[in-house]
């Protein structure tokens, strides 16, 4: 079973929730950190690095002796990554999506592909949790190919996926094929606004989902009324407890620092299993 933890807004507690869910499982679990631009789960789990592999995408290279400057590659490229002015084309690997189109259209067969590094996938072992994280290289624009590489590591009965914030391509690449999505939010106007956007996305992808309210307060005139009106399941509430923020600042998990909360995550995991 693949459970993805996502949110529209950043900083609502995705990583915290994903890690504590994994700890609450008490059995072997695979945690995939798909927030490849800002992967943080390893900071709290501090496991041993077991494996690392480099992830590449295919990008074009032109053989100048064969190129006659016809410009068909340039005309074809949808991403302005290869540009020709009746000359040997100039290639921008940063813009390239790696579709292979330029190579296929070149009548002179002057284009071949080389591997361009975009990041690494690292596997850590931390007791019952195996953590696989993607780390995007600085200056690389496209996260989805690296996210797909992290997701290729998915195996076993229980896979928990820590998603990036937002609602665009990296989130879509992460959520696709999940069995259940947990959307984490907070009872603030920003939290509610971005939750609505995230709900639009999971509905568009036809994925089953529920919501966890983090930093919950007794009075909530924002998120709870919205969930009721939209008939969205509220899976759990984690109270606004300054001790949680302080233990997070020390790099501790909630379950280790404040064991009284363990039950919240055990029940949450149970609810997700029943709902999915």
């Amino acid at each position: 079973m693949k459970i993805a933890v996502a949110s529209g807004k950043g900083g609502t507690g995705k990583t915290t929730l994903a890690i504590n869910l994994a700890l609450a499982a008490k059995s072997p679990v695979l945690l995939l950190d798909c927030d490849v631009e800002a992967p943080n789960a390893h900071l709290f789990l501090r496991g041993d690095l077991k494996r690392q592999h480099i992830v590449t995408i295919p990008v074009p290279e032109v053989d100048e002796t064969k190129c006659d400057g016809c410009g068909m590659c340039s005309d074809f490229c949808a991403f302005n990554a290869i540009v020709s002015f009746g000359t040997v084309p100039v290639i921008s690997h940063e813009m390239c999506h790696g579709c292979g189109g330029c190579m296929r259209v070149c009548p002179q067969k002057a284009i071949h592909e080389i591997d361009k590094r975009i990041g690494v996938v690292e596997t850590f072992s931390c007791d019952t949790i195996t953590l696989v994280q993607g780390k995007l290289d600085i200056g690389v624009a496209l996260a989805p190919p690296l996210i797909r590489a992290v997701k290729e590591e998915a195996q076993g009965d229980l896979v928990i996926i820590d998603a990036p914030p937002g609602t665009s391509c990296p989130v879509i690449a992460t959520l696709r094929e999940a069995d259940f999505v947990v959307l984490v939010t907070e009872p603030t106007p920003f939290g509610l606004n971005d939750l609505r956007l995230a709900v639009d996305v999971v509905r568009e992808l036809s994925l089953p989902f529920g919501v966890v309210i983090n930093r919950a307060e007794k009075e909530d005139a924002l998120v709870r009324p919205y969930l009721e009106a939209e008939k969205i399941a509220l899976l759990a509430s984690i109270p606004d407890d300054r001790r949680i923020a302080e233990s997070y600042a020390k790099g501790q998990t909630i379950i280790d620092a404040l064991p009284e909360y363990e039950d919240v995550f055990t029940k949450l995991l149970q609810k997700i299993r029943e709902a999915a």
Partner: protein
Amino acid sequence: MKEIVIISGKGGTGKTSLTASFALLAQNAVLADCDVDAADLHLILTPNIQKKHEFWSGVEAIIDPALCTNCGACLNLCRFDAIKETNGAFHIDPTACEGCGVCARFCPKGAVRLEKRLCGAWMVSDTRAGPMVHARLGIAAENSGRLVSTVRQEARRVAEETKRDMILIDGPPGIGCPVIASISGASAALIVTEPTPSGEHDLLRALELTRHFKVPAFICVNKWDIAPEKAEQIEKQALANGATVLGRIRYDKGVTQAQKQAKAVIETDTPSASDIKGLWKHFQQQMEKENQP
């Protein structure tokens, strides 16, 4: 013209709250909300939309079932796992298609067509802090980087038209495509972080990014008093990485209260308002210093 972009690496560190306050303090700036896939600045600045434009960008591939013979050629050509097979018939998942056009070009039956794609909308609005350009990415849509570029371009146009010499950009979290589109060519980046292991880790990645794109970096630690030692450690690291430390903002529940009233923090008398005013003053001094020969 100065383009100041506020980013963070880690999400939820307080970018938007700070941008809204800075916008009011600046008085003569154009605002650009470049967090196009989870925009929130409008919740504080309650814009009056003056112009709204559809954002068409790129194409998506569509298979015509009448022409398709299910040969599977496209399945092998697509690098984005966008070709799906249901009950022996092929179709394209629009949320996976990146619009490269390879399937359409090489389908032996010419059964794949490319259609222009509506990826969202962008708006030019009036706010009490000045003109604002903002956007909304379509649901599960592509091309957030291009939408960011469109918002920045439009903000520059508005700034020239209204003779304003500063653009304040509310950036997205992370270090990928929309962040790169937000910071490239900007005059300065202010990175907002928090005194946590994640805040520190993601700040260092954001600083690597600003260095990569040669954008001068400033940092500020929000909620510094949650972990004062961590805050100090982060500031030392930022200095060692060539950034200017602008100051600190205390942990303050009044920030959420302000947000609930659709007010910027500096429009209330909550304690962190004075921190933010101090930051802005320091920032102005730094910018003036830079302007001197």
